């Protein structure tokens, strides 16, 4: 699926990785576009981390091609435009926060006042101002995640790959990081988010890929992946035969609550069809007390997709 006018930042085609005869990733293909927040979802052992490691050059694929920002992953100039935060990051504990950022900044090619400025900026962004001279060995798990994110965005990358960003954070930290990611996205940074936090992914990501057993099952915008009908609950003053007949003509199914005959559950294909329901109720002369679409969540979609795949 090509998006008009948007340049791809990640192009993965026919990716396969085998570790000692165990297939971790098989025939994985997807494209992520510039400015997108792309969620990568899957249960433990699905192959998510392997894909992320291939995208960052930590793992070599057995087969397939990967292009990041238009170039092969080993392209040095391209790497200057990528930030990466691994899951449960481990850093050199003897370094102070400032030294840690300066080292990674220099690896990116930053020097002098610009490096100092960026270090100050990212420390403030991740909420670690004032911790410059604290050793990483004394950092909590949450602080490690924050300093890890700081090194990932130090170079103001075009693409940042985040592996389970909020896993070590408390609720306040999670909220702060969500806000920061929204800010980065608004500034035009492309974000590849590998996460179990489906609510975060749903709130932030433009598109998601669901992977299981090394294969991609679905790729697309969350709302476009909802393939089950939307259930709309309606409550009226009286249910007539005409109303049931008219609703039946636009709905996939209409069920009447046996305990409350004025309550109907109407299954429609999408939100647009749901809008027709109100008009039909009005045309049939009934009084509408409730019209409540049952929200479909990414979590439901994810669980159903994975269950279907496993069965």
């Amino acid at each position, binding site marked *: 699926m090509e998006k008009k006018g948007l340049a791809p930042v990640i192009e993965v085609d026919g990716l396969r990785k085998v570790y000692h005869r165990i297939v971790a990733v098989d025939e994985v293909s997807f494209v992520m576009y510039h400015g997108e927040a792309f969620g990568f979802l899957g249960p433990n052992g699905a192959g998510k981390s392997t894909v992320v490691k291939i995208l960052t050059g930590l793992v070599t694929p057995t087969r397939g091609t990967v292009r990041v920002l238009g170039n092969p992953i080993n392209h040095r100039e391209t790497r200057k435009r990528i930030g990466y935060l691994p899951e449960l990051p481990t850093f050199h504990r003897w370094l102070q926060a400032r030294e840690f950022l300066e080292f990674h900044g220099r690896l990116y090619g930053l020097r002098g006042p610009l490096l100092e400025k960026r270090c100050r900026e990212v420390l403030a962004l991740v909420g670690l101002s004032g911790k410059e001279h604290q050793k990483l060995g004394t950092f909590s798990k949450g602080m490690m995640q924050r300093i890890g994110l700081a*090194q990932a965005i130090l170079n103001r990358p075009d693409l940042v790959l985040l592996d389970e960003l909020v896993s070590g954070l408390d609720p306040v930290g999670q909220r702060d990081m969500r806000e920061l990611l929204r800010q980065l996205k608004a500034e035009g940074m492309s974000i590849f988010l590998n996460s179990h936090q489906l609510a975060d992914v749903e709130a932030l990501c433009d598109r998601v890929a669901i992977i299981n057993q090394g294969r991609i099952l679905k790729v697309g915008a969350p709302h476009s992946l909802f393939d089950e009908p939307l259930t709309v609950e309606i409550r009226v003053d009286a249910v007539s035969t005409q109303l049931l007949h008219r609703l039946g003509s636009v709905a996939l199914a209409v069920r009447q609550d046996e305990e409350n005959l004025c309550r109907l559950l109407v299954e429609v294909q999408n939100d647009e069809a749901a809008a027709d329901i109100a008009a039909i109720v009005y045309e049939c002369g009934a009084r509408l007390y409730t019209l409540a679409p049952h929200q479909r969540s990414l979590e439901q979609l994810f669980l159903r997709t994975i269950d279907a795949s496993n069965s």
Partner: protein
Amino acid sequence: MTLALITRFTLQEAIRRRLFLAVLILSTLLLVAFIILLSIAINLIQSNSSTANGGTLSPHLFLLSGGVFFDILMIWLVYLLSSLLTIVLTANMISGEVEAGTFAVIVPKPISRAEIVMGKWLGFALIIVVYTALMFFALLAIIYWKTGYWPEQVFSALGTLELTMLALLGLTTMGSAFVPTIVNGAIVLVLFIVAPIASIVQFVVQAIKPTQSLALQNIGTVINLIIPTDALWHGTSFFLLPSAQIFPLLGLSTDSFNTPFTSTQPVAPALLIWVAFYILVLPLIAVVRFQRRDL
């Protein structure tokens, strides 16, 4: 440039680690203790010099001949200390970072894996070479101060000693790209111990049955090719000795230095070529392996 960055980072890390600090403190204590012990020994020698050497040597020459023995003994200690430091400090050079997961944020940066390995190798090489040279000259200076003996081929002795450390470093570098830290350390330590044992066995068999020592000699050669540290130490010990003309003046015999621990022959040029190859190629093998390794 990034290679220099990794080298600097390695130096910084080594200096901040407590192990390095402990080695520095212990080395300083060793030097102080050696000055005290040597002073006591010299005083004892001087007070008994007429009876100790049978009156054949002047006290000055007797002190010089003592200096030869002290040089060999103390530089052998430097050889042991530096070798152990090399193994302990560098057995985890690559594997340690892989096991800890610290490479996960370094490798994706705009730096090649070859630069990472070579930068770390260079950093450790600098530490080990400087430490060895400092200990070497400090001990020789103390011995010179107390006995007046200074080896004529001091730089050749230091050169072969440094080659020993670089050979060990090459081995630990390569090992750390292939196997976990503990395995690498154990393998290199065992090899390091096996080499002098082979020399001792060869020496004993040669003394008992000189005609049957060919097979053992071949085994010794193979071991020296696998780990040339012991052969290089023998070369170092040769350069610490006075020249053949001075031996009789000091009341010494070359036979007394033909032992499993010392040698009166320089290192064969073929071995030196092999060691140069060893020092260059083993880290390159580590680079090739690390470039293909999944992290």
